């Protein structure tokens, strides 16, 4: 996984915002290296991460696969059928949608890398380095720090420590992050 970004897609409303979404849905986009990870791998994670037989709460908060081309559409539809079989239900009982992405609009900056709001020094540095939502969202460094520090996903901190010098962070920040990670390793 290289980068993530949150935003709005799937609808027709032009220039959606958080307070004026229209028919758009909140979504996450993952940029990945296809030589390391496949679209099918991501679909598997997606289906395991939610209950697809539950009715969607709203258009804004909807379980959906947003495909970008015919190839993704076919794989997404096949994965829906596979998931239904896995759960012992009819494919028609699956409420998760498979829809065209249309246009993906980046969400506001304060929605990007949200977990980093708990780490003000890191957030401040990244927001100064990348003041607009797109560049902040496009940052692999911000993506990794958000995942390691905020998401609590039991990451391998040894891998984090090994890669940290390559991030290109200021010395003080790198030192603070190293100390934090070393405590996690112990």
């Amino acid at each position: 996984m290289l980068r993530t970004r949150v935003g709005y897609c799937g609808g027709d409303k032009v220039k959606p915002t958080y307070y004026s979404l229209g028919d758009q849905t909140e979504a996450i986009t993952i940029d990945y290296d296809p030589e390391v990870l496949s679209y099918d791998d991501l679909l598997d994670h997606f289906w395991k991460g939610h209950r697809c037989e539950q009715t969607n709460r709203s258009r804004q908060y909807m379980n959906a696969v947003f495909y970008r081309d015919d190839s993704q559409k076919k794989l997404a539809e096949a994965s829906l059928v596979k998931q239904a079989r896995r759960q012992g239900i009819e494919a028609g009982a699956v409420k998760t949608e498979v829809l065209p992405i249309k246009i993906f609009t980046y969400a506001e900056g304060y929605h990007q890398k949200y977990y980093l709001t708990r780490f003000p020094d890191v957030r401040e540095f990244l927001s100064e380095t990348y003041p607009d939502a797109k560049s902040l969202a496009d940052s692999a460094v911000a993506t990794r720090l958000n995942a390691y520090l905020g998401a609590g996903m039991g990451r391998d901190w040894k891998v984090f420590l090994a890669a940290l010098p390559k991030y290109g962070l200021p010395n003080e920040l790198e030192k603070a992050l190293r100390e934090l990670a070393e405590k996690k390793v112990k």
Partner: protein
Amino acid sequence: MNLKTITTLGFAGLLAMTGIHALASEELVTEDGKVSAMKLELDREVAGRAYESATFGMG
């Protein structure tokens, strides 16, 4: 205060609020296939790698 003053102040207040709202609202952009983050070493390295994208609504 007479009616003219009240109207003028009210109008000025509305203009100020509109201006503040315009300043506060962020211009959102759409995907353009380009990676914007290039200031940090790792970002430059990752930006050069081939990638594909997957998008999900997560309820």
